[in-house]
Each structure stands twice: as C-alpha cells, then as structure tokens.
C-alpha cells in the first residue's frame, strides 16, 4: 500500500519533461519516456500512458533506435521481491481503457543498449499495435533528477 503513492509521485515528477502525445486510430500515447540508465548497464526501461478511445487493441511490439531490441515486460514487487516477466503475447489495451507503463508495473525493456540513456536524451522508437498498426514515438528522458 505504502509503495503506491511514492510511485505515483515519482511518475508525476518524471513527467516534467514530456514528449509530445502521439495518436494512432483511437489510441493516444501520452508522455513516452525512457529512464536514464547507469553507465555499464546493458538494459533500460521506457514508459508511457496509452489511452484508448476505440476498440480493444494490443501492444505487440516496440523498437528503440538505441537498443538491439525491445521487450514488453510486467513487473511487481511483493514482500520485498522484485519479479519481472516478459509478456510474449503483448499488452492488452482494453476498449475505452487506459494502460499505464510505469516503474513498478508494465514497461518496455530496452535490451542491448548501444550507449547509456543520458538525462535529457530523446530516443526514437516505434510501437506496433495489433489493430491500429505501427506508430513512431520519441521517448524523452527527463533532465538530471533534482534529488
């Protein structure tokens, strides 16, 4: 319970440097972002909110031009244990629904980073939906965290 609020708060903070919303069909992709990655890490994570005003759809694939490939993952922390799973069938976007990809939940996992994701960077990528098709997005990394 106490874990939920800080995540929401962190997400709100991270939203200060926002990418443009992207629309495809009935879907709107809000605030596509990538987490700054430490030097030495081969993986990164990207987030967004997908708002669906249309029919049920499914996010089935994604790319990012700084990563070998991108996987769709879900993650949860239960009793202090972090568990992460690939969602090989993709992520359902229900009709009229909203799905959040955020830390501690669904996210895109950027595998095989060609270079670390720097604060303030913009990463070009694509999202492919089963019905709506493929759309280009810019994942924006917030500037250096003001901690």
């Amino acid at each position: 319970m106490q874990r939920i609020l800080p995540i929401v708060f962190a997400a709100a903070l991270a939203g200060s440097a926002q990418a443009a919303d992207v629309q495809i069909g009935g879907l709107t992709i809000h605030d596509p972002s990538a987490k700054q990655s430490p030097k030495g890490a081969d993986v990164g994570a990207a987030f967004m909110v997908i708002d669906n005003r249309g029919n049920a759809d499914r996010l089935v694939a994604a790319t990012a031009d700084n990563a070998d490939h991108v996987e769709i993952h879900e993650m949860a922390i239960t009793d202090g244990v972090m568990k992460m799973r690939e969602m090989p069938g993709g992520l359902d976007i229900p009709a009229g629904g909203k799905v959040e990809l955020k830390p501690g939940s669904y996210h895109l996992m950027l595998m095989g980073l060609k270079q670390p994701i720097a604060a303030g960077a913009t990463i070009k990528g694509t999202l492919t939906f089963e019905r709506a098709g493929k759309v280009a997005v810019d994942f924006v990394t917030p500037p250096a965290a003001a901690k």
Partner: protein
Amino acid sequence: MSRPSAPARNRGVIVAGAFALVIALPLVAMLWLSTAPPAPAPRAPTFVLKGLDGSTVESARLTGKPFGVFFGFTNCPVVCPTTMTELSGWLADLGEAGRDLKFYFVTLDPARDTPEKLRDYLENFSPRLVGLTGTAEEIDAAAKAFSVYYKKVPTSSGYTLDHTALIFLIDAQGRWRGVLDYNLSRSAALERLRALLAAAPP
C-alpha cells in the same frame, strides 16, 4: 428454591478464579514486557565474497563500522538503479554523519557482471557503494544467509532475474538493524540510517 449446594458454590469460586487468571495473566505479562529491556538485536548473517580487485571480503571483518548490503545485477532496468540512486541521495543527505557508512552491492549475476562492468556501473552512484562478486557458489551462500530470493527467468533475448530488493542494515557490532525497502520515503530512510549509525558505537 434452595440455595446452591456447597459443590456448586465451590465451582463458582473456581470459575471466577480461572476467569481472573485469564484476565490478569496477560496484563501482568504486558506490564512486564513493557518494562523489560528490549531484546538485543540478533547477529546478522555473514558472507565471504570477493571485492572487485579480487581480494576476499569477509563480513565478519567489517565489524567496527555499520554497513548495508543489497543484492542485485546491472541488467536490472528499474529496481536496482532506482534503489542505488535513492541510496546515494540519502548518503549525500547524511553528509559527514554517514562518512563511515558503506553499502555493498552484491551481484547476483556474476556470469554477466564482470568486475569491470560492476565498477563502471557503480561509478554512477555514491562512492560509498562498493561492488562485491564471487563464484556462483559464494554468491549463492551469501544470498541464502540473508534469505535473499533470486531466480533466473528466461526472456526472448536471454534472461533476467527476479530478486529480493531490500537493503539489509548491519550495525557496527555485526547485528541486524532492519532493512530499507523499495520506495521507502526519504524521511523514513534517513531515520533508519541515523538509528543504524547511533546503534552502539564501537
């Protein structure tokens, strides 16, 4: 109606007495517990691992200064870097008071996390974070000692790890001082770290 017979009266006394005991015993116990000195913190588990320079690092030899331990891996996209970033911030907040406090990042993925990789990775964070590695057996023994759960999970491109994401705190005398759990607030984390520093100076 006749008065209750003697055996019945006696039974009443016994029931009342038993009832009083049931009420009174916990009260006495509570009073006793509240005035008793707190139980000493239990000994923390130990580990024998390798520093990034190949030297042996034994937790038993670290006593004299408090420290923390986190088990993770560099290919962890969210939890590990977030934890290390937050921890670095808390250490900066503690300032001079936390100068003796070190945190050990133990890799659970020695096959991919070479000492060079760990060194590069930890350079992103507070200089008080120290990387530890070892053979798979040494790391497994350390993880077991701390009841750390970890499990390799295949993905389409390789594997990731499920793992316990707690920072264990050990005081200057090698005793358990609790954990910092994921997404702990800054104020709660600082409170626990200050308590750790205040716990029985060497």
